[in-house]
């Protein structure tokens, strides 16, 4: 019965370190591990939409990348606004300059008017590469003006959220953006106009507690982290580990806070469909 006497392990040469060798042979970024399902794929398999071939999770995109995936017909708004440094926060101006260089944005959101499938839309796209997509005073001003212009021009608003919450480097003026934007959302709604936030990874904190949850329809990309409090804070508070998908868009849909999970490849069609239905 040789079959049952097999060792349960395989001997390897002690000096050989296969993982290390593998790493040395593979150029950087050739294989990407999906942050959600943890499977690794050749980078081209993620395609132009940057979506995991296995689980459908969409990699985090720069705002400009997402914009180009949605449409080629757009005009940006408020690109010249510059944030002040209300707390005289050490190292903040330098941090801002770096973020601006990396994202080609003046702050953590791109806003403008765009045409998607022939429909005119006031569009906002937050960028998690800009200080974690945090809500600063200029982000708040750009979003407020997005809604105000949409009211003037009678346009629907579609806003891709991605944020760690209010920007702590700007202190209370950053928190006030939640109130300011909420007023603009309410006025836009009172004018009978349509607003849809699309939650993308990650949408948390003060953004979840304001305009991300104030839409007529709320959509989310697959396996998006959505929550108010941080996972670690909750685990420390209740002294218990949370399930893996605790703060996912899918879980929020089950709990009644998200209307639809929309794969990245279907976003343009979905936007066009619901904007047309809500005119």
């Amino acid at each position: 019965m040789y079959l049952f006497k097999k060792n349960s392990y395989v001997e390897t040469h002690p000096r050989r370190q296969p993982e290390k060798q593998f790493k040395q042979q593979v150029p950087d970024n050739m294989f990407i591990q999906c942050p959600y399902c943890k499977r690794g794929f050749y980078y081209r398999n993620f395609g132009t939409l940057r979506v995991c071939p296995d689980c459908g999770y969409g990699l985090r995109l720069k705002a400009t990348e997402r914009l180009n995936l949605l449409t080629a017909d757009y005009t940006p708004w408020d690109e010249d606004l510059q944030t002040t440094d209300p707390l005289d926060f050490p190292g903040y101006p330098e941090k801002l300059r770096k973020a601006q260089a990396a994202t080609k944005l003046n702050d953590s959101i791109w806003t403008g008017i765009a045409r998607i499938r022939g429909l005119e839309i006031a569009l906002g796209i937050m960028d998690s590469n800009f200080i974690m997509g945090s809500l600063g005073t200029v982000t708040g001003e750009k979003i407020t003006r997005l809604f105000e212009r949409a009211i003037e021009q009678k346009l629907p608003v579609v806003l891709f959220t991605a944020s760690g919450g209010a920007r702590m480097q700007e202190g209370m003026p950053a928190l006030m953006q939640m109130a300011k934007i909420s007023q603009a959302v309410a006025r836009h709604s009172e004018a009978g106009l349509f607003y849809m936030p699309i939650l993308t990874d990650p949408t948390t904190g003060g953004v979840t507690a304001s305009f991300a949850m104030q839409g007529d329809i709320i959509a989310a990309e697959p396996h998006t982290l959505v929550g108010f409090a941080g996972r670690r804070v909750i685990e420390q508070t209740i002294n218990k580990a949370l399930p893996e998908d605790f703060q996912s868009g899918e879980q929020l849909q089950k709990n009644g806070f998200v209307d639809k999970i929309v794969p990245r490849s279907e976003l343009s069609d979905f936007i066009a469909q619901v904007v047309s239905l809500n005119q």
Partner: protein
Amino acid sequence: MAQKSKAAAAVVKAARSADKISTRALINGLVTDFVELHGDRSSGDDPAIVGGIGYLGTRPVTIIATQKGETVEEKIATHNGDPEPQGYRKALRLMAQAAKFKRPVITLINTAGAYPGADAEQHGQGEAIAALLEASYQLKVPFIATIFGEGGSGGALALACADEVWMFENSIYSVLSPEGFASILWKDSGRADEAAGLMKLTPSDLLSLKIIDQVISEPSNQDKLVKNLKKKLILKVAELNQLAPEQLIEKRLARFRKF
């Protein structure tokens, strides 16, 4: 800087002091014939938010206040004053009721923030706060918010999108706690005092940033304190009551649009 940190840290300490006036004492001192109202009419009643109606002087008002509780049992039930979604939804319900009966709304705030619990998250903490932010703007009656201890982030802002926002001398209002700030920035929550100096969270800092409208002096004699606040509230409510609902809303819009 060091001096500023020290001063700010002292305010943080005083804001959280065990001697801080309790929510009950404050409400009982401010209004007469107080009737507490319970529940959000959909999922429960959160003791971290006390709501009800009573007379401020001769005028009926709606009071909505966060509550830390006085006994250990109360502190556990209220998560030491951190509201859950049903608390915010109770506030929303009482605001709508206030508008119906043209009663001014007075909020009293002392909370470290919205409760970061698993249930709170599942019941839509974010959505509950977001709904209040919109409803506060649309409220057709005078609305005055007073932060009398801690004003922690979105959980405090949810009750503070008012026509006037006041703060007690020994109170704070901030994006996150100085401890949280220090642990994110320096990976060391022990440097909270230093963080407090940076954050501009004291009443005087926030008054100069125009985040708040008035600082309420806080004498150690609580009777005096409440009497003084009551007088100011009566005067301000009378003043705001002169305005038509549209004017009130327009002014409230301008107040927050400037940030």
